[in-house]
């Protein structure tokens, strides 16, 4: 069998699949970039790239900066850039005071900033750290996901992928590449722990609160938690009955916000 898939008892199998995807992406696309948000998933993704490409990250890393990320996020970005010799590109987005709902804030600001940078740099593949278990809409994504000229996600007609082979749509403006789709939140923490991946300190509890999912300062809400280390977080996730992104305003089902955002090109 080409694509042996064992149960997720360790991160080795998950890692093998991600590395295969990253190397395929490098072989199939001319001009790749990786999207880094400051959160645990995209930081783990950077560490995986170093495993896939022998300690190098052979493409630029984009940070969409709306100027209101947490200071800890900026500090981590600069630390990683230096430590891992990363070529960081910043996509500046301007935040407007009256636009703070999911659609106009994440949609208009972050997506527009990324579009501008993409027009200039002409990337044909964008690597991102989304996972299926984060959200019902993200769970429907492909590993190589084409976006057309208007950045539309044609979710009603997604290409076939199987046995570790991925379709490429030659008419696409670019493809999104999702090497972490099959990872769960808890797997990411196991990987970070085992590999000592630098972590945004906002994930660890202070005064009874921590962030479980990180966006910008505007739309992210802390959860009640006493978990002040990675093993604590892993324990906490073992019993939780609440979803990871419950503190993220742009996900709420009532408005199908995530579906609309993704169709429009959101990450």
């Amino acid at each position, binding site marked *: 069998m080409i694509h042996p898939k064992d149960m997720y008892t360790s991160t080795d199998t998950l890692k093998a699949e991600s590395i295969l995807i990253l190397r*395929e992406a*490098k072989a199939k696309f001319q001009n790749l970039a990786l999207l880094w948000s400051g959160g645990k998933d995209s930081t783990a993704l950077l560490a995986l790239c170093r495993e896939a490409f022998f300690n190098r990250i052979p493409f630029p890393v984009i940070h969409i900066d709306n100027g209101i990320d947490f200071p800890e996020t900026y500090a981590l970005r600069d630390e990683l850039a230096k430590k891992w010799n990363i070529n960081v590109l910043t996509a500046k987005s301007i935040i407007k005071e009256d636009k703070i709902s999911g659609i106009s804030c994440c949609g208009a600001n972050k997506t527009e900033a990324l579009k501008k940078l993409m027009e200039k740099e002409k990337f044909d593949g964008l690597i991102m750290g989304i996972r299926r278990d984060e959200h019902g809409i993200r769970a*429907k994504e492909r590993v190589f996901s084409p976006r057309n000229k208007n950045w539309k996600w044609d979710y009603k007609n997604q290409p*076939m992928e*199987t046995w570790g082979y991925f379709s490429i749509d030659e008419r696409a403006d670019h493809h999104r590449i999702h090497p972490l789709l099959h990872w769960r939140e808890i797997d990411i923490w196991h990987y970070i722990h085992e590999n000592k991946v630098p972590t945004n300190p906002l994930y660890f509890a202070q005064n009874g609160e921590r962030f479980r999912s990180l966006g910008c300062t505007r739309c992210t809400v802390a959860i009640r938690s006493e978990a002040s280390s990675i093993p604590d977080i892993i324990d906490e996730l073992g019993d939780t*009955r609440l979803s990871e992104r*419950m503190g993220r305003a742009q996900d709420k089902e009532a408005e199908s916000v995530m579906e609309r955002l993704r169709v429009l090109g959101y990450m």
Partner: protein
Amino acid sequence: MPEDRIKDIQNALAGSKKKFEWAYLLDSFRQEREREMTLDTTRAIIRLGGRSYECIDVPGHKELIKNMLTGASEARFAIVVIDIREGITPQTLRHLKIAKFLGIEKIIIAVNKCDLTKYVENEFTKLRKKIFEKAELVGYRTVHVIPIAAFFGDNVTIRSKKMTWYSGPTLGEVMTTFLVTPTVRTHKDVAIGIQDVCNRIIMGKIFIGQVKIHDTLTTVPRGEKIIVQKLWVGKSTVNTASVPAPVSMSGNGMKNVRRGDVLVKGHSVYFTNNMKATCVFIKSPSKKISIDANFNTSKAKIVGALKRFKPVVIEIILQKKIPILDTFIIRQNSEIIGMGRILRESHMHR
């Protein structure tokens, strides 16, 4: 299932006339909920008997077979859901044939909506007899057939109080017996597909067996000998590595190795330009197709006409020989339009 996600769905339904359905947890597109059908594959993790299972939900309709294949080709076992009022449909049979083609050996057939036939035993036993007959025709000699009422949870993980006549296992119980820890197959043969080469270090994926330092391997297609001197999994140096590890290697005789080569020991690779294979197509192929196997590719031609959406045996002529282990995919331009398995008996091993 996260409590807040269930609550979100209930809130979303509050304004409409629809009542809560479990399907909405997986059918997250608005259109899927409005049309009450699954359009695309998705996954969800469930916990059962202290272990985690990743469930892959796939659509049933013929036109959506590409989405079904995308999901089902990753599965270890399959649960085929049948509506007790409809019985076995052409769609059920198509799915069974495709599951067989994909190499899924273990099948559960869940006969659902038993509440709508008032939990009557006879309705179920009549259908079960037909299911056994049809399944055997497809090549499944043993299938588990379980009467359930999924909406109420009868025989899903909790034994039904309405169907006390059924003494067999629940769906959950069968799933637990299916999941055994995979034994690492000791394989004398080795096959490693090469994905990338950088600074004389070759990087690839182990498809079969185990590789050790000082191993001598043969490159396909050029037939050169290489000796492994340094071996890494990810960034860590190791002495041995086995399936499915992503490996990097350096050593003697590697200067001609490039992406698409397969490094082998033993006889696990076909190297051919003319093959008989079982394939499933989701589109009728045009003249310009190519075959991809293990990071290698060749232009190809199909002999004869073929039908879509079901396994067919065909002959494929490749423009150049490429190493194939067992499975391959068919591309038109860069889009995957089919998948195939080489027919073992019709080919000599290299």
